[in-house]
């Protein structure tokens, strides 16, 4: 419980706590600007496990620092994005990926929103079409009523004249 509270406290301040002297912001230098972009995007798609709602890019936690270093070194060694993420998933599970992986168990998350949208739109069209059918019936009711009124008026006029 105490550990959890400590973690929570850490997170409440966005990892600005320095338990030991760590560089809060580091500069990772790559020879290639593209590599630097790849590093930044990769590191923002991995989760900081200590703070649990920040990416490795944003978190200042100790573990985030270590993992960023790990990713950096792997990239320098020429590893691909997949190799880096596989390395981390092997050790920490799918949770370390900020984006849920695309596999059958996560189809709910990736396709769910669209399924809901399609169902909603279909329901919408169905109710619109049903409404039109009722409208047409109502018009004929109304017409009938107007016809009756017109008939009554004409008979009334006849009676007066």
């Amino acid at each position, binding site marked *: 419980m*105490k*550990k*959890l509270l*400590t*973690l929570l406290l850490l997170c409440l301040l966005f990892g600005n706590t320095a*338990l*030991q002297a760590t560089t809060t912001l580091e500069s990772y230098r790559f020879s290639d600007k593209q590599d630097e972009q790849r590093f930044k995007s990769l590191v923002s798609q991995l989760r900081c*496990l*200590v703070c*649990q709602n920040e990416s490795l890019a944003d978190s200042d936690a*100790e*573990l985030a620092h*270590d*993992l960023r270093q*790990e990713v950096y070194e792997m990239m320098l060694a020429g590893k691909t994005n997949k190799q880096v993420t596989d390395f981390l*998933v*092997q*050790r*920490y*599970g799918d*949770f370390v990926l900020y984006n849920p992986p695309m596999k059958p168990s996560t189809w709910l998350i990736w396709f769910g929103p669209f399924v809901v949208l399609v169902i909603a739109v279909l329901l919408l069209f169905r109710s619109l079409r049903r409404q039109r059918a009722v409208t047409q019936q109502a018009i004929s009711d109304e017409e009938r009523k107007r016809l009756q009124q017109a008939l009554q008026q004409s008979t009334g006029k006849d009676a007066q004249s």
Partner: protein
Amino acid sequence: MTRYLRYLVPLLLFGLLAALLLRGLSLDPKLVPSPLIGKPMPAFSLSRLEDPSRTLSDSDLRGKVSILNVWATWCVSCRAEHEVLLQLARTGKVNLFGLDYKDERSSAQRWLSRLGNPYSANGFDEDGRVGINWGVYGTPETFIMDRKGIIRHKHIGPLTPEVVDKEILPLIASLEAESK
């Protein structure tokens, strides 16, 4: 009849949501389960905390049911856990090893000499690399391996007497009973 059933849909959906939230109250969202369970323990070779000239490696843990406890002097919960570890070591039923994670050697040595040393041996993981290989994300964490060196259990958070009695010791006993 179906016309009226349609209006019950929001209520039913809410019912599902409420059930989910109720279940959620008894879960801990911060726990990250380990994908290493059921897999062979990661290989490592570290200098020993007590004696830098000697090494502790995974082979030292293989061939017997062993426990690896990840700890550090800067970790408040580890201090709370230490008494439990001493008691566990005194039972004589376990092979307890330690991984000193991202610590300072002299402080760690002082810590153990002052508070007592429950470990058969300690590996000194200064930069945390070995910890990463084991999927360590917050101390203390405790791993239990069987004779073949397969990780069978991971406990996240400090050990308490209750956890030791209900989880650890029974597991050790059953792993010992497994045929070689």
